[in-house]
């Protein structure tokens, strides 16, 4: 990405020294298009998680299934014991968790790598203001919505998984922790803001992954935008409803 000039004839530009290539996957990942595939594939995994997570949390609305027994807590136990006894207790859960951790790390690493490439690609910035025609708020703020979501995930784990910042954390009593946490208005606001950021991130990300993977068919292209809008909307509406429902008293817990 040189900004220098060399005068003189150009010749032999396609004759490359056949240097040793890296192992296939690393070689692929070293290209920007390869990184975009990683963004798209890890994005699909994370999207699956986000959808499942939202759907699972709808159990909050079910409240109690028996005296002192909450649907949410039962769901948590089910998750822990998924495919037990074929797999050890929490085995599948941790398998999925590690998959997610790897996906998140790759997603962030690829994004970081692409950002560096793109910064280098325009070392001298435009000196006058740009007038963007179609690049939308979502596409231009992916980095920022991504960072907000990442910070939120850290908080979220500290709140509900480890309980470090939860006022009333008892392992296994998920319903209680949720209600206890969301009754703090600032926390709910942070949760809502983060989920709107997630929605914006998905609005561009879901559409974008089709392009990155080269899934393109004029017959279906218009649906890519619709799909992205629908997924983003469902996720945001679903997730944002939880703190609002807690604050409105629709979801509650006597111990909170």
């Amino acid at each position, binding site marked *: 990405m040189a900004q220098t000039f060399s*005068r003189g004839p150009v010749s*032999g530009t396609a004759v490359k020294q056949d240097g040793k290539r890296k192992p296939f996957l690393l070689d692929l990942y070293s290209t920007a298009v390869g990184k975009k595939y990683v963004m798209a594939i890890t994005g699909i995994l994370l999207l699956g998680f986000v959808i499942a997570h939202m759907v699972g949390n709808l159990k909050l609305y079910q409240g109690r299934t028996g005296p002192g027994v909450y649907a949410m807590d039962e769901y948590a136990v089910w998750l822990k014991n998924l495919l037990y006894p074929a797999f050890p207790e929490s085995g599948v859960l941790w398998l999925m968790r590690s998959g997610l951790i790897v996906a998140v790390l790759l997603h962030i690493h690829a994004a970081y790598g692409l950002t560096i490439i793109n910064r280098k690609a325009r070392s001298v910035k435009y000196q006058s203001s740009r007038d963007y025609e179609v690049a939308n708020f979502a596409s231009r703020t992916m980095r920022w919505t991504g960072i907000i979501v990442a910070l939120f995930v850290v908080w979220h784990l500290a709140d509900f998984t480890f309980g470090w910042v939860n006022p009333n954390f008892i392992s296994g009593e998920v319903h209680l922790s949720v209600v206890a946490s969301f009754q703090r208005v600032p926390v709910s606001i942070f949760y809502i803001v983060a989920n709107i950021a997630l929605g914006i991130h998905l609005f561009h990300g879901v559409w974008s992954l089709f392009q990155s993977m080269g899934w393109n068919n004029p017959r279906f292209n218009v649906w890519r935008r619709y799909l992205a809008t629908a997924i983003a909307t469902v996720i945001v509406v679903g997730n944002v409803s939880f703190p609002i429902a807690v604050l409105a008293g629709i979801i509650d817990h006597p111990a909170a």
Partner: protein
Amino acid sequence: MSIELDAKIPEGPLADKWDNYKEHEKLVNPANKRKFKIIVVGTGLAGASACATLAELGYQVEAFTFHDSPRRAHSIAAQGGINAAKNYRGDGDSINRLFHDTIKGGDFRAREANVHRLAQVSVDIIDQMVAQGVPFAREYGGLLDNRSFGGAQVSRTFYARGQTGQQLLLGAYQQMARQVGLGNVKLWNRMELVDVVVVDGRCAGIVTRDLMTGEVSSHSAHAVVLATGGYGNAFFLSTNAMTCNVTAAWRAHRKGALFANPCYTQIHPTCIPQADDFQSKLTLMSESLRNDGRVWVPENPDDTRSPDQIPEAERDYILERLYPSYGNLAPRDISSRAAKRAVDSGRGVGPLKNGVYLDFSDAIGRLGKSVVEERYGNLFDMYRQITGENPYEVPMRIYPASHYTMGGIWVDYELMTTIPGLYAAGEANFSDHGANRLGASALMQGLADGYFVLPYTISNYLAPFLNKPIPDTSHEAFGVAEQQARDRFARFLSIGGTRSPDYFHRELGKIIWDYCGMERNRQGLEKALSEIPALYDEFQKDLRVTGDGESTNQTLEKAGRVEDFFELGMLMCHDALDREESCGGHFRSEHQTEEGEALRDDDNFAHVSAWEWTGDPARPNLHEEALVYEEVQLQTRSYK
């Protein structure tokens, strides 16, 4: 210098000449080709295709373009298509018919053998371009589509939307780029030829100026090919790109290459008229518009009504009236003159009264707007963008403009100029179109020269020089030429007058257009020959070039090109004055029939006028190459 014009036409019947030539030419062994270096200047259709093919054969090729990339060359702007005698329509086309059409279209002023060869290789061009991935228009069955063009009664024009030139140039450019990538072509961009160097009577190389650094340097080679286009920008306003110029051809001319038929310039009838004095160039719209548009002007010169208010009875459909059988589809030169006469009679339309209407209201009424839109939508959009007028509602205004130059550097059958080792290809040479070029033939000729002619003929010249040293750039002739070039550009910078090069170009263009344009006469040409030197004097005293010579300086580049146009302009007028007849693009008002048609004089002017530089632009030296027709019967062109 005594010059013998030997066209080196091969023996045998016309149809066998090219095969005979190929059988008897001298060849260079494949392993020896790499010992020869060939310089190609210009990277349009002719230049890029020559670079690609010569490099494929194994020659060392050095390509020079003054653009940033070879792909910018003005071949890219050709819209209509490319002719080839494929006879895919089964409508009676053949090599012989294409040959006859081209000779007749050129008003019997082209060299038979060259034209026949062009028609022969036209067939290979299409195959070659298809193999390279040029997306020619196809029919639903997947086979190549054709359209018809003026001056032919068969459908033999292949096209890629309205961008045929672009697609063909990109095809040739890609083949050239492949050779650059492989290391067989050395590509120099933003380098302008400023001189041709001749040592011991042979072309030894060129001198260039780096447009980014101003550095003047020399490059030697066994042979040099000029594929540097035409000189239509001598008129200032033309459909050529802004940087099209005659400099390379003119520098070669000054070093001994004869310049042939400079007065043969083609005027294209369907251009958008000039809108203002500051206008920088004219835009051409495809001639196909005349298939459905009707050309008219008001009967009354003082009519100020808007066109839709002028009743049928008060309109003069000039082409339909003058040429009832061809009507609005009369050939380019004839339609152009009819428009000029209407404007000259004061009946021009538009704010400057400098155009004629091209009216689609009948076509829209007959076919419906959607059909017209489908056929001409992109042209209508282009017109609207430029003029701000909607041609679906208001008739278009058109006027002829300089478009192509049939004249150029004199070359023999091998495309060699009168300087041994210096070749000219494409529009830069004069060879194939006679006094008028048919539509869709320019692309054909450029590619024929570069792909299929030069690669054969050049080995015939090179073979005897195997393992013999050639003068390199340390030879004093290069040093002298370099110093002259440096002095020349330093001179432009030091004049310190008051006017920009563009000012002089515009003024020069007006003179050439007025007196050596669509219609010429002795009085006008003599006037031009007194006005041009006067303006040239002023140029040398009052030119102002700002900036320096050590970095990009477009003003300085322009000054050099304008100076060459001054000398060329004089030669155009000399040639037009000498040719006491009317033929093709050259119309002398003294030589016309009672109906105002061109009157040829085959007894006295069936020859190529090749001009020699004498050091004084006012006194060029004329040589004649007689045109001998073995196959063709000379006849009067009639499109009545």
